[in-house]
């Protein structure tokens, strides 16, 4: 946020602290200083405005430089002389050696820092991106496991935190596009159901669950048929626990699950549900549901 003109069209009312911190930041950016003090400054500026792309990017570049410097035998954090590290340094896009205590220590510090940012705003897009970057680069099984628990903690705080659900998918897949094992997929579907049970109106666990079911079917995994059918039954059970109220999130997931089973009875039931949603329970998307109903009713060629 550079205020270059003397009299801008619309002045933003920054606090004095904010102005001071960002004045320092701009000065350091001009010389592009990479040091422990600018690392600390970037952290301060992000606490003041966690949504600033430029500062996140600067922080990443500082970390890369500090790591390079340590690798080539330069000064350590408290002026200690550290032996050279492996050529594949932490912050290049190749994976780092998670067994290296110093790399692990930096990563843990960053993850802790990101957690404090997320504790103020659990949906901060930059913070989540940065977290994924750290985890993917480090690729340590301990850290993957520990972040799985972290997503659970955040989901328990706020079931509707879609960012946490997205991160859980990322962690379960170890940051790749490879399908999960059927055991993992089953575990995650049951996890999603347990959260949907607490609040069936929340779309996140349903979308999450559908993602796993689809992935299993697409990869031709053993047990994918049983998984879909069991999820169909579970969605019916949950729907009854939300009795007397409309529940479009649950119903729309159920429609998808029934369509995946694909039998005539299932599609008929799904079409009826789509009709219910379009005409009564989710009329804002009436045209969408009418189309979906038509699709489900269409005679399938054998």
């Amino acid at each position, binding site marked *: 946020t550079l205020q270059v003109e003397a009299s801008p069209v*619309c002045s933003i009312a920054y606090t004095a602290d904010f102005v001071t911190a960002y004045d320092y930041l701009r000065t350091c950016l001009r010389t592009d200083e990479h040091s422990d003090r600018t690392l600390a400054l970037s952290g301060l500026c992000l606490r003041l405005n966690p949504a600033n792309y430029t500062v996140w990017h600067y922080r990443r570049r500082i970390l890369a430089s500090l790591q390079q410097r340590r690798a080539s035998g330069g000064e350590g954090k408290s002026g200690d002389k550290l032996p050279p590290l492996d050529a594949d340094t932490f912050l290049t896009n190749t994976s780092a050696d998670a067994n290296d205590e110093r790399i692990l220590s930096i990563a843990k510090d960053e993850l802790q820092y990101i957690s404090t940012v997320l504790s103020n705003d659990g949906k901060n897009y930059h913070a989540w991106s940065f977290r994924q970057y750290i985890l993917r680069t480090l690729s340590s099984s301990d850290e993957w496991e520990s972040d799985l628990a972290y997503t659970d903690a955040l989901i328990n705080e706020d079931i509707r935190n879609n960012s946490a659900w*997205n991160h859980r998918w990322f962690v379960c897949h170890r940051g790749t*596009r490879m399908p999960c094992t059927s055991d993992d997929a089953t575990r995650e579907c049951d996890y999603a159901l347990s959260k949907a049970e607490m609040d069936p109106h*929340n*779309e*996140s666990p349903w979308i999450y669950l559908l*993602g796993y079911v689809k992935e299993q079917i697409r990869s031709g995994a053993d047990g994918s048929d049983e998984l879909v059918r069991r999820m169909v039954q579970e969605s019916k059970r949950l729907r009854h626990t939300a009795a007397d109220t409309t529940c479009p999130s649950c119903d729309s997931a159920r429609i998808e699950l029934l369509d995946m089973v694909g039998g005539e009875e299932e599609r008929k039931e799904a079409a009826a549900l789509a009709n219910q949603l379009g005409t009564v329970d989710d009329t*804002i998307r009436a045209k969408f549901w009418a189309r979906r109903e038509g699709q489900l009713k269409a005679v399938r060629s054998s």
Partner: protein
Amino acid sequence: LEDSNNSGGGEGTDTATIDLQKAALYVSSCRNFDGGFGSVPGAESHAGQIFCCVAALSIARSLHLLDSDLLSWWLAERQCDSGGLNGRPEKQADVCYSWWILSALSILGRTDWINSEKLASFILRCQDDEDGGIADRPNDMADVFHTFFGIAGLSLLGVLDEIGEEQGKTYRLIDPVFALPVDVVAHLGLQAQVVRDDTGDIRPWLANYDV
């Protein structure tokens, strides 16, 4: 660091300097389990990123790389009771998503998957009666950013046309791929790709595009 925001910037005319197929594949790698797109692979689906990706794939004539139905459903689910659109599940409606989402739906031929009247009414309620600007949501401070996206949204909804008729004026239409007036797009001969809507139609001003 490359991210999906940058892929949409390449002009269609100078393909010698950009590997379009690789760029399209990169965009496709940002696709998530919910059909949406984030800024980098693995990042949460977000309506703003989705516009960038859909428009980029449109420019690269690679819309086949996405699941139009699944994505359009995700976008349709962004409409809140207020009629406004949010950018991610369980976030607040914001006028700027009138652009990010409607443009994507326009390219995908599925603008009628959201309720136009309710959205238009939401946008109009975001206008400040005193100074005329449009805010992110009703009763907030107006700003230029949200004013642009509110007007762009009304244009894509066809509501700006209706307003024009009432006023005896003609307002230019905005192109959903390039976010430019359609006459400028035509004049520059810019090319892109769109998807037919459910009736098999294309909006007239998108007729020059590949389908």
